[in-house]
């Protein structure tokens, strides 16, 4: 089965950039969400989503809360999660690790870095 990404970011610009980057590295199947709550709704309604790329800082429901919600969700707790964020401090990265993200990308990123992290995740799951 091919990969279907859920791209979660409150910035429309960033969602487009992530989507364009995914296309440039050969992935065409993705859906989008503007925050963690919408992401959960999409994950609940679309069982074909099998990879989550999420921002951290979002209103209402953050990326970190989304990671924790997914990891405690019975059906989707094993879904790979890549955090793509401006937060590059050590304590931030450790907090994301503690919440069990599969990998971490600091903005600004290149499509090559995105591909590298996706490949690493796919090789480890």
């Amino acid at each position, binding site marked *: 089965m091919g990969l279907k990404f859920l791209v979660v970011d409150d910035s429309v610009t960033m969602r487009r950039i992530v989507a364009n980057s995914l296309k440039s590295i050969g992935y065409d199947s993705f859906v989008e969400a503007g925050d963690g709550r919408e992401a959960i709704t999409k994950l609940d309604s679309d069982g074909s989503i099998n990879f989550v790329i999420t921002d951290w800082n979002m209103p209402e429901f953050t990326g970190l809360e989304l990671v924790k919600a997914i990891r405690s969700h019975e059906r989707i707790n094993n879904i790979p999660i890549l955090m793509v964020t401006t937060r590059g401090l050590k304590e931030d*990265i450790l907090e994301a690790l503690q919440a069990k993200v599969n990998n971490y990308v600091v903005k600004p990123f290149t499509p090559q870095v995105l591909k590298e992290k996706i490949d690493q995740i796919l090789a480890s799951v």
Partner: protein
Amino acid sequence: MDNQSNMEQVFQKLGDLKQFFVFGQKIVPVFQKIIDFMHDIVPLLENVNNSIHDSTSKIPKAANQINNVTYATEIATSEILDIVDSMATDMTRIKNELIDLRNGFFNQRVALDRFGDELKPLNGTYDSLKSSLCIDDLENKVISLDSIIRKIENDSSNITISLQVQDITAQQLASVNHLIQSVQKRLASLLFDLGKQTEAVLPGLESAGHLDERSFNENAEYDRTGKHQALADNLMNSSKKASQEEIDKLFTK
């Protein structure tokens, strides 16, 4: 004896009264200075009060302007992305056309070679025809165009990466906005205490937009050196070798 005693008491009281008047004479100028000082300071305090009120009432406008900047840059970034997407579509079309051209040149060369083999008696005519068609030159031009297109694609990709600055500056501006609104709340509270404002929150504060602290990263920075990514990679690699307990321990340090 009683009269003498009474008179002594009267004199003593008069002495006390005199001392009081002497003290009064000394203290009155001090009171006068205090009154003069109060006279001077009250308008000054009123000015300070008005100034704080004016500054506080301007803050929602400043906050709105910051929000407008964020909105405008998001629109502009989106327009640039539209152009980059359109360029990418055009580049794909040009690349496909170039592939067709190269295939065409290949077929022409094959046909020409077959023609040359079949019409050997024509001697020099074949070579002359082949040279006049300039297939090699045209093919080299196609290869050159192909490399230019790859460069344009690479430049487009770099533009897209640079456009991530919009998200980063939006978070920085949101952080500044949050700071401005915090100052406004403090000033509004001060005005409330001074009795100038009847409500603790000035009108317009809410119109500046409620900012959730979770929606921005005050430390966001546009850094393309890769130092933060290197740190993330390092911690991720370490975590693969570590247990969850060790990660938790790292986190609590």
